[in-house]
C-alpha cells in the first residue's frame, strides 16, 4: 500500500510540471500586456486547484499510513512484549530524503560498488553496472509521450491550429480587445475626424502643451519659427498642412527624422489642441525664421484624400520600367 503511494508521487510531479509548461505557453501567447493574457488563467487555475487537492489527498493518505503503522507497533508490543517491540522500532531509520533518493536512483551505495564493478577496464577506467535511474527513465518516457501527443494534436488531427491560424486568431482577439477599449473612451479624436479648434480656451491649452509637456518648442522654436525641426509659421508643409495631417504627424511621429510619436504622452484631445494652436501660428512671421521646407499647402475646407506621395513608390516603378528583365 505504502509503496504504491510513493510511486504515485514521481508520477504526479511531471504532471504538475506539464501543467505549468502549458500555462507558460498561454502566458507567452499573450505576453506583452495583451488584454487576452488572462483568458486562460481560469482554466489553469482550476488545474492548479485540482493538483493541490490531489497533493492534499496524498498527504492525508500518508498520515493515515503512519497511524496504521503506529497501531501495528502497539499490537506487536501487546502480543510479543516490549523487547520485540524495541527491536522492531529501533531498526535504523533513514531520512525521507535518503529513502526517496534510493527509490529514484536505485543506486548501489559506494561501499558496495565492488559487487557491480565490471571486469573490464580501459586505461585504468572501470565501469559500474548501476541501473538506469528510474526517474531518468520516467522523464524519457514522459518526453516521448509529450512528443506523440503534441504531434498528433497539431498534425495528425485538425485539433491544433497552424501558425497562420494562430496568427488570425491573435489578430481577431486583439481587434476585439481594442474595440472594447475604444468603446469605453468617450469622444475619441483621431486623424480621421480631428477638427481645427478656434476658441480661445482650446488655443490657450494648445499653447501650454506646445511650451510645456509637449516640448515642441525645443525643435520648432518658441514662436514656431523652426530650428532643428521645420518652420511652423510658413504655408509650406512636409507632411501636409491640414489639421488632420498635423494630428497624424504628432500622433505617430516621423521617427526616422527625429519627430517622435506622441500618442502615448498626449491624449487625443491634447493633440488636437496643440495642432490647432500650431495652425494658429500661420503667417505670424516671427524673427529668425527657418527657410520653407516641403510643399506649399492651401488650407482647404473639404480636404481631398491624399495621393501617393511616396517618393520611393514612383522611383521603383521607374526603375522597374527601365530594366528589360522585369
Amino acid at each position, binding site marked *: 500500500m505504502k509503496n504504491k503511494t510513493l510511486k504515485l508521487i514521481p508520477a504526479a510531479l511531471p504532471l504538475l510540471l506539464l501543467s505549468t509548461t502549458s500555462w507558460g505557453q498561454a502566458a507567452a501567447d499573450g505576453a506583452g500586456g495583451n488584454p487576452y493574457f488572462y483568458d486562460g488563467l481560469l482554466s489553469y487555475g482550476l488545474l492548479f486547484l485540482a493538483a493541490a487537492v490531489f497533493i492534499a489527498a496524498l498527504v492525508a493518505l500518508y498520515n493515515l499510513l503512519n497511524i496504521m503503522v503506529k497501531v501495528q507497533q502497539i499490537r506487536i508490543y501487546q502480543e510479543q512484549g516490549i523487547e520485540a517491540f524495541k527491536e522492531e522500532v529501533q531498526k535504523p531509520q533513514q531520512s525521507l530524503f535518503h529513502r526517496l533518493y534510493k527509490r529514484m536512483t536505485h543506486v548501489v551505495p559506494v561501499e558496495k560498488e565492488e559487487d557491480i564493478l565490471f571486469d573490464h577496464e580501459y586505461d585504468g577506467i*572501470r*565501469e559500474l553496472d548501476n541501473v538506469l535511474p528510474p526517474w531518468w527513465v520516467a522523464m524519457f518516457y514522459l518526453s516521448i509521450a509529450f512528443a506523440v501527443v503534441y504531434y498528433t494534436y497539431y498534425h495528425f488531427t485538425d485539433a491544433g491550429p497552424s501558425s497562420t491560424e494562430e*496568427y488570425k486568431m491573435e489578430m481577431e482577439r486583439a481587434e476585439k480587445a481594442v474595440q472594447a477599449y475604444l468603446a469605453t473612451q468617450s469622444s475619441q479624436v483621431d486623424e480621421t475626424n480631428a477638427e481645427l479648434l478656434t476658441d480661445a480656451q482650446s488655443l490657450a491649452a494648445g499653447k501650454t502643451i506646445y511650451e510645456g509637456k509637449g516640448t515642441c518648442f525645443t525643435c520648432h522654436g518658441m514662436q514656431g519659427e523652426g530650428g532643428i525641426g521645420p518652420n511652423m509659421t510658413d504655408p509650406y508643409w512636409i507632411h501636409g498642412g491640414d489639421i488632420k495631417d498635423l494630428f497624424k504627424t504628432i500622433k505617430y511621429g516621423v521617427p526616422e527624422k527625429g519627430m517622435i510619436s506622441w500618442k502615448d504622452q498626449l491624449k487625443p484631445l491634447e493633440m488636437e489642441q496643440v495642432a490647432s494652436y500650431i495652425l494658429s501660428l500661420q503667417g505670424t512671421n516671427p524673427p529668425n525664421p527657418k527657410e520653407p521646407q516641403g510643399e506649399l499647402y492651401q488650407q482647404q475646407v473639404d480636404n481631398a484624400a491624399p495621393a501617393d506621395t511616396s517618393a520611393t513608390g514612383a522611383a521603383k516603378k521607374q526603375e522597374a520600367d527601365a530594366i528589360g528583365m522585369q
Partner: protein
Amino acid sequence: MAQVEKFSYDNAIVRKFAYASILFGAVGILVGLIAALQLVFPSLNLGIAEVTFGRIRPLHTNAAIFAFVGNGIFMGVYYSLQRLLKTRMFSKGLSEFHFWGWQAIILAAAITLPLGITSAKEYAELEWPIDIAIALVWVAFGINMFGTILKRREQHLYVAIWFYIATWVTVTVLHIGNNLELPVSLWKSYPVFAGVQDALIQWWYGHNAVAFFLTTPYLGLMYYFLPKAANRPVYSYKLSIIHFWALIFIYIWAGPHHLLYTSLPDWAQSLGTVFSIMLIAPSWGGMLNGLLTLRGAWDRVRQDPVLKFMVVAVTAYGMATFEGPMLSIKSVNAISHYTDWTIGHVHIGTLGWNGFLTFGILYWMLPRLFNTKLYSQKLANVHFWIGTLGILFYAIPLYWAGWTQSLMWKQFTPDGFLQYGNFLETVTQIIPMYALRALGGTLYVAGYFVMSYNLVKTVQAGSFIGDEAAEAPAASTWAAHTGKEHWHRWIERRPVQMLIAATIAILIGGMVEVFPMIMIDDQVPKIESVTPYTPLELEGRDIYIREGCLGCHSQMVRPFRSETERYGEYSKSGEYIYDRPFLWGSKRTGPDLHRVGGKYPHSWHYNHMEEPQTTSPGSIMPPYPWLLRDELSTKNTAAKIRALQKLGTPYPDRYDEIAVDDLQKQASIIAENLRKDGIDGDKLEEKEIIAVIAYLQRLGTDIKPAPQAGN
C-alpha cells in the same frame, strides 16, 4: 602468461594541438570581447571595414568553435584514443597533415572572414576552397583514427570512442550537405538550395554542429578525463549505452527548432520541437554519468581545481541542454528568438561546457605530458573563480536583456498601437546590459590569461615526454566470446559495424526532414509576383552578405501581431525562392529588414549608411563610409548571373551579356533620385552604396501593396 608487447604513445602531436587550442582560444575570446565592446561603443571599429562587427562576429564564432574547441577535441582525442586502445597513433604523417592542415584552415579563415569573404551560413561561413580543405583534413583525421582503432590491443571500444566515431561520421555528412555550392569565382559561390530549403539545410547543419562538434566529442573527452581525474569508476555502463544511441539518433532531428514561426512548413517546425523535448533525457544521461561518477570523490572536488572545472562544465552542459529544449517550445521561442537570450544560452554551453572542460583537461594533462606538477594550484583556483564569475556576468545580463527587449517588442497600448514603435527604444534600453556582458567577458578573458601563465610556468618546469613508454598484451591474446555477456559488448568489438550503425542512426532524421522539402514542390507555394533580383540588387545583396548585415538584422517577419504591426505582412516561403543563400538571420540587434523596401527614401539609406546616428540618434549601428567611397565591382556580375541560371533562377537566355548594362541603368536612376535630395558626389552611380540601396529597396516588395501616403 599472455604475450606483452612494448610500444609508446605519441605525445608530441597532443602537445601541438594543446598549444594551438590555448593560442586560438585566446584569439577567439579576445575577438569576442571586442565584438561585445563594439555593441556598447560602436566607434571601436575605428572606421575599419575589416574589424567591424558584422565581419568579426563570424571570426569570433569560427575561432571559438573550430580553432579553440576544434584543437581541444583533437588534443583530447589523440591523447585518450592511444591510451584507450593501447596503441600508438596509426600514422605519424597523417597526424602531422591533420595538425598543419587544420592550422592552415584556421589561418585562411582568419584572413578571409575579415575581408568579407563568406558564404553567410552560420558556423559554415568559409568559402568553397576552404570547405574542400576542411573535408580533406577531416578525412585524414578519420583515416588516422580508424587506422588506430584497427591496430588496437584493446578488444572492446570504450564509450568515449563510440562518441568519437559518431562525431567523425556526422560532421562529415553535415559538412558536405551544407556546403553544396556552385563556385562563381575563387572566393564566391552560391548554394545549390535556395530560400526555405537552404534555411532547413543550414540549421540541420548549424544545430548539429553544436551537437556533433561541441557536444559529442566533448562527451567522449568527459568519459575519459573525468574518471581519470577523479579516479572513480564510471557510474553506469547501461546509461552510457542508452544515452549514447538515443542522443545521436534524436539530436539530428532537432535542427528546425531554429526556424520556429518562420516560413518553414509547420510539420517540420513541430518535428524540431518534439525531438528537442525528447533530447532532454539523453543529454542529461551524459551529465548524470559524469556527475555520479564523482560519488565518493566529492571531498576532493573541494580541493582539486581540475575536478572543480569539470563539475562546472558538466553542470553547464546539463543547464544548457535543459534550456535548449525549453527554448524549442514554440511559445517560449516566440519570446526568446532573435533576442540576446539565445546568445546567453549558447555561451553557457561554450564558456561553461566547452571552455571549462578544456581547462580541466589542460590542467590535468599538461603536467603529465611534462612529467611535473601543476605550477600553481592557487592560480588554477583563481582562474576557476574568475571564470565562473565571468560566465555569470556574461549570461545573466543577456537573459535580462533578451526578456526586456522581447517584451518591449510585443507591448501594445490599449488602443492597439505598439508601445515602443521605434525599434531603437528597445535597443537603448538594454545597452547597460551589453556593458555588463562585456564585463563578464573581460573576467573570463582575465581568467584565461591566468591559466596561460600557469601552464607556461608548468611547461617550463617540466621536461617533455615525447614518446611515453607503455606495454599491453598483444591483440592475438584476445579471448573468444561465447559465454553470457551484455548484448552491447558485441558491437564494441566491431568498429566497422559501430560506424555503420552510427551512420544509420544519424541519417534518418535528416532524411525525413530534408527530402520532402527538396523533392515535393508544393512545400514551397509559388507566388506569381516574385521575380529574380536585378543585377544591381544581386550585387547589393552580395555586399549585404560581405558586410555581415545578417549578424544583426533578420529578414523574416514572423506571424505575430507585434511583428506585422511593426514590419508589415508576415513572410511567405514563396518570397525566398531566389535567395541564395537565404538571409533570415538569427538575431535582431537591429530591426527586421524583410519589408524595409520602400519604407524610406533612397537618401535616408544613403545618410544612414554614412552615419547611422544622423537618421537614428542613439543607434549602435557602425557607420559604413566605405560603401559611399568604394566603387562597385561588376567584374563577376555576368558570371554570377550564369551561375544562378545553372541553379535554376529564370533569367532570360543570354541575360548575362546585358546584365551590366541593366545594372548601370538602374544605378543611374537611383543616383539621379539621390541628387534630387541634394546628395551628390563624384561618380555617385558607380558606388557600392547604390547597389545596397537597390537591394534594400527591393526587399519584401514583391508582394507588398503599393505604398500608402504617410507610411
